């Protein structure tokens, strides 16, 4: 509980301050526009908190389902591949696809389109009913003109239909949670 609280403190209060001090349009908190997005499954709401600091990009996921709150952050590096422990993915929770208890995910990230697109590619280990499997997850985070909209496009190596999530930027003084 304390850990979650500290994570939230970072996500809700610290990130907006960082955003003010940074020049990336990505920085800040973004709230999912459910009407315009692919349907979440097993989650009812989602915010992203993004902080760009040098070559590192911290992508926080503030997820809600009923009384369940999850806040998890992946920190990727646009300068070099990294291996992340317990990489968080927005899972479809009505599928029997589980994150292993301990896992390492190789992740590559880079800027595209004059830094208006962040590309993240991860090979994520999962557990399914037949045992271990992997999903190659290709994500693009695209900031729209004016910096008010963020589009996340997810392609799974295991899924022919892309998932498209559209977010709207929250004002820097908005401390509400999803």
């Amino acid at each position, binding site marked *: 509980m304390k850990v979650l609280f500290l994570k939230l403190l970072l996500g809700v209060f610290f990130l907006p301050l960082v955003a003010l001090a940074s020049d990336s349009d990505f920085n800040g908190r973004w709230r999912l526009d459910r009407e315009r997005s692919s349907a979440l499954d097993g989650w009812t709401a989602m915010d992203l908190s993004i902080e760009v600091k040098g070559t590192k990009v911290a992508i926080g996921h503030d997820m809600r389902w009923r009384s369940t709150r999850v806040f998890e952050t992946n920190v990727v590096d646009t300068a070099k591949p990294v291996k992340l422990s317990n990489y968080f993915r927005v899972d479809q929770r009505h599928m029997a696809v589980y994150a292993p208890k301990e896992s390492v995910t190789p992740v590559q990230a880079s800027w595209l389109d004059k830094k208006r697109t962040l590309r993240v590619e991860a090979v994520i280990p999962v557990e399914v*009913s037949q045992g271990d499997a992997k999903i190659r997850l290709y994500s693009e985070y695209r900031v729209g003109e004016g910096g008010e909209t963020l589009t996340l496009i997810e392609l799974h190596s295991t*899924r022919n239909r892309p998932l498209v999530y559209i977010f709207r930027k929250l004002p820097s003084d908005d401390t509400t949670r999803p």
Partner: protein
Amino acid sequence: MTMIRLFYLFVFWLVSVGTLISSVGASPAKQAWVMRFDLDWQVASGLPEKAMLISLQGLANRNEAQLYIIHPPDFQWEITEPLYDFYKRKHGISFTEISTADAALDQFKSATKGYVVWDKTVGTSLNVAFTISGLEDAVVVSEELIPLAKKHGLKEIDDLRGRYTGQSDAEIYEDAIDRYWARCNRDKIMLMGGERGRTMMPAMADWGVRERMFFHDLSADPEEADELVLNRRLLGDLNTGAFVFGWHPYTKDTEEQSTMLLSMYGLKMEGLHNLPNLSYNCQFEFTPGFKFTNNHSVALDAKLGAQEKVYISFVQSDSIGIGVWTKPGRGKLPFAWQVTMNWTDFSPAALEYFHESATPNDYFIGGLSGPGYMYPNNIPADRFPVLMREARELMAVLDEHVMEIMDNSAADGNVGNADLFKETVDAYYEAFPNVIGFINGYGPARTHDLRDSRPMISYDYYIDPRRPREEVTADLNELIVLNSKRPYFLLVHVRESNDVNSLVEVVGNLEGPVEVVPLDVFLKLAASKKTYKTRFRQADDPVHFKGF
């Protein structure tokens, strides 16, 4: 002297046996009455009259089946009208419609000794009033209905207005326990939860009134410790093997907490809070000559061989009465339906109706976890074999070969941990030597096993009725890719209110060598080639609710 005493004893025995035989053999009355309800259950409008009529129904039906209530098709229990037709058609009941509360009181006032007034400003007082109703043969009225009760010559038995003003639910129920619990039924208790506040839906209250149950909606949430302690006291006071009828109170606790708690006492849950007409239904038996004959696609001892395919099977739990039974398309795909097995006692006509209207693609299975809704990871070890023997007997009556298990005590609704400990799985294998297999979960789960020819397969997918069908298709296709060994056994839980037509479309868009098969075939095939990994719930698996 001894001869005279023996003679009197013999005469007494004859009279007793005669009385017993006549009561056992008594058929329900062929003349009955019916009322139609609308969907207005608001405290400020429709509820008070409905509460009065439901309490009246419980009293009127105490000695014979007299009053039946039909709800609109979009009420959660959608089969009241088809079942009404069934009673007319198969039992020859002639119903007379009653259109007003006034007429209902006129017809059935002799079943009551008076009225008890509940306090509309204290919703909990309605549950206390229902308890009094059963004990004192009183109809439950709100303030504005007092004149109507008086018009029919009914006298006030109790008035709860003001008695509980400003009190917490724990205080109210503590008082009610002190006053009434000693006289209440200890084999059955009514957890009259569900909706709270401006809308309440106590459609099952007739049953509680008839059976003189204690009504409450005490929380099972440990954070509401004052209520939990009373809840536990009541559960602990019940007789071994007792039933908890009704449903947990929304916004106070969760279904998982509530069901886990009563499972810890080895009790059986039958719901929901709005399951209507049990006071009527319970008085019927199966029609003469009726015998359950399930649509088995494979014999118990058959052996099948799986091919290099993806085998899919669909299951609808949540009890068939609130499911997709009346939705379009039933029969187009093989479907397994979890039957509320205790309806053999409480609602035989409903079970007979389902069996009568089943298509060849409808297959019935036992559940949920036992002879009622219960979480087996939490059932006391000494109660488990007794309960499962009961379940076995019910499954035999219902001609069922598959047991469905669900333990959501560590889950969060239809996501999260729904797995079984190895000890629980061991206990099921021991208790059910003659089933084709077991299925597990509600949302997805990962408990899998195979012992001799009996597989235990968990759901790999749960279809949320609100999820767009194209995403459902993509989800299933993704599971097929991720589980790349063939055969792959993909068990799908279809949540109530999905319609089968939409699933036909989903199946048509699946990729790969897919075959949809009936559940018994699915399990036989799963027994023939084990491509799933044996797994049980592990001590360090994530849990949502840590327990009591």
